[in-house]
């Protein structure tokens, strides 16, 4: 389940236009027209990208029938960063322990001289 959701998030973020939309929405909500402005793209093209982001749960649309402002949903993004961070934390902790072991071996070698 979790992997499937991550896949959707990654697929949605694999496109540079969609990443730019996410970056823009991180600053606050915006309408499709406002989002289309900085890109040389039609509103329907932007809407297509928004649909992908919506399906991945990254963007939600307001109820206001006229504007339907888009806003960023933080949870899936947080999950993507957590995903790699957790892995990094595990190996970080492992290597910190390895540091201690190396320190011990360095001391031992200093006392006994390097045998090889």
């Amino acid at each position, binding site marked *: 389940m*979790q*992997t*499937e*959701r*991550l*896949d*959707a998030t*990654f*697929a*949605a973020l694999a496109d540079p236009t969609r990443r730019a939309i996410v970056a823009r929405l991180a600053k606050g909500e915006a309408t499709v027209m406002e989002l289309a402005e900085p890109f040389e793209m039609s509103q329907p093209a932007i809407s297509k990208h928004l649909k*992908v982001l*919506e*399906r*991945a*749960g990254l963007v*939600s*649309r*307001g*109820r206001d029938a006229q504007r339907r402002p888009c806003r960023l*949903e933080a*949870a*899936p993004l*947080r*999950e993507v960063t*957590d*995903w*790699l*961070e*957790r*892995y*990094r*934390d*595990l*190996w*970080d*902790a*492992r*290597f*910190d*322990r*390895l*540091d*201690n*072991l*190396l*320190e011990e*071996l*360095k001391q031992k*070698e200093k006392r006994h001289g390097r045998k*090889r």
Partner: protein
Amino acid sequence: MAGKGSGKLKVTLPSDNEILLARVFDAPRHLVWETITKPEYVRRWFCCMDGFTMPVCEIDLRVGGKYRYLMLASDGSEVGFHGEYKEIVAHQRIVHTEIFDPYPDSPALCTVTLEERDGKTYFQNLVQHTTKEARDMHVQSGMETGADLALDRVESIAQSLGAPTRGGNSTVHAVR
């Protein structure tokens, strides 16, 4: 949840199916080599999760030789890895396969390199998976190795998903 480690490790994703670990150790290369190739040393740093022991740590360090790591949680659950050495250049380079026990059909290829400069060792491990999906699964497996960490995480995900998304659609479909 901030990491408990020193943050000296760099993890990057060079491509869709790779993970690169890079770390500098303040020790000469021959010592780093010992600690990553001798079971009595590997045992002391590899199994760093609370409540876990490492009953199996076997290394047959020669081309074609196998290794096997098995960690055991206090609740009896197991986390195991095994693989085969493909290339060994003493103190410099090891290429080996890595198979996470639950996914025997998704071996990764790991290339570990050690370089020594000014008494420090520059360690890199490039983990290459056959597909992006296999890589993501592997990273995911790292999160599951700490039972209580995993529980923490399930809780926080449940909380973030449980938060009502105003006007949003809480169902997420895979996009391909």
